[in-house]
């Protein structure tokens, strides 16, 4: 009985001493985390996608607080998932202001569907674009186009990208896409671009990534950019289009969505996304009306315009 009592007392004393030691140690070596970091973290989406360039949301929160203290602004910091609303909340907590940032979206710059870009051989190795890129050109004659093995799909945390079984091309769901850029990093051919969403989600895009000379690009794909430069001429007024390495590129910040390049492209490589269908050619002389198109309130307005003219 006595020995049990001794053991209990001894253990109790040791426990008490250890508790006191731990208490003073925790007071002495306490790490004071800026409480703002916790507050900022709370408003972040907690997707931990890394799209901001920091290791997870906590890392981003820390970076925001650090930038506030050191630089006095949140410039260059953006949570692509939360976008403008979340950044405003973050700025509110930190007593800063944020400049308006235009939302972005991932764009797959390849339109080499099975129809446009016939399959010449069959690849039966591991289902991975990176592996396929190592063993050669892929199944088609285009050495720049989409493999369709879905490396981007596997990297997307938001289920925003899929391989269309009919075209065998990657397709982005604009609603779900947060422009975190994981797919763009995963693509071994750099086909996916994180691009400005554009006003009312409307934008002009060259859906091709082929940097081969025109003759080769033309031979293997019906929808390829051949670098002819007709779009550059069509866009002389705004100078939004440049051709480098036989590939046209539209600068989204300069583009005024006039759609002249779309008309000029002999290969149909330039696409107008989320734009209303074009009016029939007969209306072309009505130039002033055409200028109004971008200002019309919604997409349904344009079919009405011809009626008004009548």
């Amino acid at each position, binding site marked *: 009985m006595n020995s049990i009592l001794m053991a209990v007392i001894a253990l109790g004393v040791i426990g008490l001493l250890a508790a006191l030691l731990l208490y003073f140690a925790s007071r002495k070596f306490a790490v004071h985390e800026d409480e703002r970091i916790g507050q900022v973290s709370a408003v972040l989406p907690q997707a931990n996608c890394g799209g901001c360039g920091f290791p997870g949301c906590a890392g981003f929160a820390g970076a925001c607080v650090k930038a506030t203290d050191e630089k006095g602004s949140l410039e260059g910091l953006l949570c692509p998932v939360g976008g403008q609303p979340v950044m405003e909340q973050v700025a509110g907590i930190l007593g800063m202001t944020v400049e308006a940032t235009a939302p972005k979206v991932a764009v797959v710059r390849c339109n080499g569907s099975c129809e446009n870009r016939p399959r010449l*051989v069959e690849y039966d*190795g591991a289902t*991975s674009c990176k592996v396929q890129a*190592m063993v050669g050109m892929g199944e088609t004659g285009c*050495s720049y186009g989409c493999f369709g093995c879905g490396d981007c799909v596997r990297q997307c945390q938001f289920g925003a990208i899929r391989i269309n079984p009919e075209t065998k091309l990657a397709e982005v769901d604009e609603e779900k896409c947060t422009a975190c850029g994981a797919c763009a990093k995963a693509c071994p051919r750099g086909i996916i671009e994180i691009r400005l969403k554009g006003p009312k989600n409307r934008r002009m895009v060259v859906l091709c990534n082929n940097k081969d000379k025109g003759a*080769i690009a033309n031979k293997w794909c019906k929808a390829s950019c051949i670098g002819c430069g007709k779009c550059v001429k069509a866009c002389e007024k705004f100078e939004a289009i440049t051709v480098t390495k036989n590939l046209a590129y539209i600068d989204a910040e300069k583009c005024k969505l006039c759609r002249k390049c779309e008309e000029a492209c002999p290969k149909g490589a330039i696409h107008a996304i989320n734009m209303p269908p074009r009016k029939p050619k007969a209306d072309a002389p009505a130039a002033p009306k055409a200028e109004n198109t971008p200002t019309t309130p919604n997409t349904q307005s344009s079919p009405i315009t011809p009626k008004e003219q009548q």
Partner: protein
Amino acid sequence: MKTFHIGGVHPEENKLSAGSPIREAKLPRQAVFSMFQHIGAPANPVVKRGDQVKVGTLLGEAGGFVSAPIYSSVSGKVSKVDVALDASGLRRMAVTVDVEGDEWEEGIDRTDTLVRLADRPELDGKTIVEKIKQAGIVGMGGATFPTHVKLCPPPGKKAECVIVNAVECEPYLTADHRLMLEKPEEILVGLQLVMKAVGVEKGYIGIENNKPDAIALMAEKANQYPGIEVVPLKVKYPQGGEKQLIDAVIGRQVPAPPALPIDTGAIVQNVGTCFAIYEAVMKNKPLIERIITVTGKSLSLPSNLKARLGTPFQQLIDECGGLPEDTGKVIGGGPMMGKALMSLDVPMTKGSSGLLVMKKDEARRSEPQPCIRCAKCVGACPMGLEPYLLAKVSEQFDWDAAEQNDITSCIECGSCQFTCPSHRTLLDHIRLGKSTVMGIIRSRSAK
């Protein structure tokens, strides 16, 4: 009988063309010379459109020390200096020559008379290496590493012996086997030249014992050449791998990278390379042709052809009876390490040791199934690695783990994938992991 110690597999040999003597392929109508025929920096074209070239005219000069010049194997007019599809499935810089006649550069000895080392006493090591470098000779077993680089060991390392790789462990291929039967003395003189170039007295010729006729002939001829010994080896794939061959012949293991095979004191050269060295040094002939095995179970006339570099594969197949109808795949190289071709219009290069036509049912890869943890791949790996693990971490892009598990030691022989009962695509992923990890190591050491 000797062989290497770790792993290895026994694929069906299928040496269909072993009995057919080497015959000369017809001249192509158009020859395409890729500037990427070797490992290292690509060659830089030195001709332009419209230039007249002869057999042996320089087309591309070496782009660095680890590089090799490229010579024309035909005479005619340069019609294009532009990108062209090559056997690797990529569009890369190449020189296209429209063939007219068959005119050779002066100074190339085209006779068959044997020139022995004793006939040319003035040759010293330096001259030999320089000649090899000038002739654009690369490893002809398929790896195409520039030979002169191998013959200049890094400072502080000393070669003790030269091993000739006459194993030809790839199924189907018989080019080296035929070359030994038809040009044994030339190969021996080539070996003597290599031995002289690196200053060693001992030479071995490692031959697998599925070629008893070649072993007997080479052993008989080697009697007249002091210091050269023929070593018969037990058949096992991948005995033709440089590290495996050193282990099999002299019983020393090459340490893990960055150590090189020279650390064991051995320099390994392929039979075809020895023959090319003989021709370059004794006959003044640059590397413009090679022996290629064109084979396949469905092919009507499996053959060993002596073809000019730059000849389109289509023509070689036509000379062996044409492409059979039920062809599923045509592989450049052997079935284990070769690469399926995208098109038959691509030209043969310095490293084209074989052309294998496979029927549709042979060619199809089976659907991969989940790993059953049988560890057959671990037992088969000749480098003592764990292929299932390397493939898994590569698939997950875990490059740190891949590096820790010595992915850079992989020789890409394909034994793991060959032996896997679940038909898993092990090598596909390991190859990706290996090249990525090598890139990471390079950029780290560049810092």
